[in-house]
């Protein structure tokens, strides 16, 4: 449970993680919110806790903030044990989901609040507040009240208020949930840029996979109080370990394939609906028994749809059942015997949008580059083979 990462203090002092959770566990009554959870956030990076509601990400954040005490485990912020410190003493900045700006205070008073609580001299407080409002591009709004600001401006004030005290860590709780799409994208970049400039360790809680992908250095995917996978955005996106991760982060075609044989570091599998044929190979860390079922994930952007004449004769076939034009991509729905859900395939629009030769009803061949089909670790109960 209290498994420590190999690089402890022994090697280098500066490698101290900005945040380290060790075996954090939390239950509310009989409901387990968080199973023993451990992870490190390297100093100065942004880590996203990603998962559906009720997955334990908010509980984790609240434990880091000090609003909840864990039943077991440790919270280390910059190497210091803060597990039982009250929120006041943790020196954290936090942007709440609805910004939680103090409605009875002006923008400047909101930003200055933390400095005032720290007992800073008035002149210094004012100077720092002004500088911070400059940084978030709101110098002319200092005397307004929160309700007089737009959502994006409130967001910036909340950010300024949380950063002005120069906290040791920044916590973001679904910070962009209330903004419309364009503003959200803009704020994603702004927050990310500011975070990098200041170099502050940041924990971002979100259920929005796009937000997690664009903003963070590291993603921790959570489900039902457990970490499903942790790693860099590309790592988690390209090498999802489980069905949950591959479907929660992006879209995936999940195929239950029969294992035909194992060969060293790879498995030979057969698509559902194929009675014969030599199947295809995927890389596998561990062997699986022949005849068992293994789950394979293929991203829609990796699934190439070709006309039957272009493809090799043994390539699997499918029938186009739907086509949507999304501007930058074509989305195809493909039907195949043996599958209960249609497959999805994206094709980038590379030139002028002419007519696609693939109208509904057309028979097509499916191919993918080796390495883009990922074997998932999920255990599948032995069913009737496809």
């Amino acid at each position, binding site marked *: 449970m209290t498994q420590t990462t190999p690089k402890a203090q022994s090697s280098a002092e500066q490698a101290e993680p900005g945040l380290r959770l060790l075996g954090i566990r939390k239950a509310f009554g009989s409901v387990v919110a968080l199973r023993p959870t451990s992870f490190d956030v390297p100093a100065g990076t942004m880590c996203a806790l990603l998962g559906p509601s009720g997955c334990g990400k908010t509980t984790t954040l609240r434990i880091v*903030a*000090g*609003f909840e005490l864990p039943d077991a485990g440790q919270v280390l912020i910059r190497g210091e044990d803060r597990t039982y410190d*009250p*929120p*006041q003493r*943790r*020196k*954290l*900045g*936090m942007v*709440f*989901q*609805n910004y*939680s700006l*103090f*409605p*009875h205070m002006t923008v400047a008073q909101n930003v200055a*609040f*933390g400095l005032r*609580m*720290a007992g800073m001299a008035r002149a210094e407080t004012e100077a720092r507040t002004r500088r911070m409002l400059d940084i978030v591009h709101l110098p002319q709004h200092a005397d307004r*009240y929160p*309700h007089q600001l737009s959502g994006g401006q409130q967001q910036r004030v909340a950010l300024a*208020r949380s950063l002005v*005290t120069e906290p040791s860590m920044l916590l973001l709780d679904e910070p962009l949930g209330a903004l419309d799409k364009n503003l959200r994208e803009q704020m994603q970049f702004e927050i990310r840029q500011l975070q990098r400039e200041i170099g502050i360790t940041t924990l971002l809680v979100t259920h929005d996979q796009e937000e997690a992908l664009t903003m963070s250095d590291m993603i921790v995917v959570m489900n039902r109080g457990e970490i499903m996978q942790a790693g860099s955005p590309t790592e988690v996106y390209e090498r999802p370990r489980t069905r949950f991760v591959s479907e929660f982060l992006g879209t995936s075609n999940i195929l239950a394939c029969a294992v035909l044989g194992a060969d060293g570091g790879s498995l030979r599998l057969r698509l559902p609906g194929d009675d014969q044929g030599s199947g295809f190979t995927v890389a596998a860390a561990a062997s699986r028994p022949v005849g068992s079922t293994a789950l394979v994930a293929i991203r829609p952007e990796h699934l190439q749809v070709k006309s039957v004449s272009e493809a090799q004769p043994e390539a699997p076939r499918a029938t186009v059942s739907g086509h949507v034009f999304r501007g930058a991509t074509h989305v195809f729905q493909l039907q195949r015997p043996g599958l209960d859900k249609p497959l999805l395939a994206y094709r980038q629009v590379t030139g002028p949008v002419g007519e696609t030769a693939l109208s509904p009803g057309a028979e097509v061949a499916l191919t993918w580059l080796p390495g883009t089909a990922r074997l998932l670790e999920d255990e599948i109960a032995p069913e009737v083979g496809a």
Partner: protein
Amino acid sequence: MTAAAGTTSGRRSPLGAGLWPVLPAVIFLLLFFLLPLAENGLQSLYVTGSDGKAAFSLAYYVHLFSDAYYLGVIGKTIWVSLLATVICILIGYPVAYFMVRHAGRWNGAMIFLLVAPLLTSIIMRTFGWNVILARNGVLNNVLQGLGLIERPLRLLQDPSAVIIGLVHVLVPFMVISIAAVLKGIDTRLEEAAELLGASRWRTFREITLPLSLDGIATGAIVVFMLANGSFLTMLLLGGGSVVTLPLLIYQQFLLVQNLGFAAAMGNVLLVLAVISLFIQLRLIRQDGAVA
């Protein structure tokens, strides 16, 4: 009549909506509220002279505001109501805070306990205090039994009994007004303040209290107006030691039968209520932008 002003006013008519459904209420109010008010107003402005003829005159009001005794009564009325209001705030705020933030599943039970006394008649409750505060009542017996006092204290027929009686009757209104506003305050605001380094007490003083002023204002106005108009408590617990406007009205109306003068005093009480309401509307309009 004047006490009713506190409960029926303060609502805004829904403009633009169909007016037909509210017609019965409008007629009712016209017949039983506005007409008597007008009648009351007229009565206070016509003084019957020595020749037996009623003539338009401000004499009652002049009398009311030039006589030191009556001015004292008006002052006392306001003072007693203010005192009761302040005590209700001091008692009511902690109760409301506990109810909203800590009672959890006992919240419903607390609301019931608060409201239950309102279901018994005010006369019953006042007589209850009589039993407790009387010369050989419960409180004096207990204090004597404990040896804390030698002779029974004079608790009844005393301003303190009036204040106790008023606070008892009116504190639920304060609690409910404050609780309603406290419930609407996002606890994340308090968390934000704590994370920014504010202690529990500072958080309360800087965030929770300012944001709940609205509830205090509403409760204070309601309690003040009800205390202003309360009559039975003054009569039964004060026993003449606290003479307020309602008590004077009662005397003028029933004992002296000077209806015109009683009407004038009633109107003064009504104006007091209207002023309180105006202050409340002002307060809420200022804070309303915040919500």
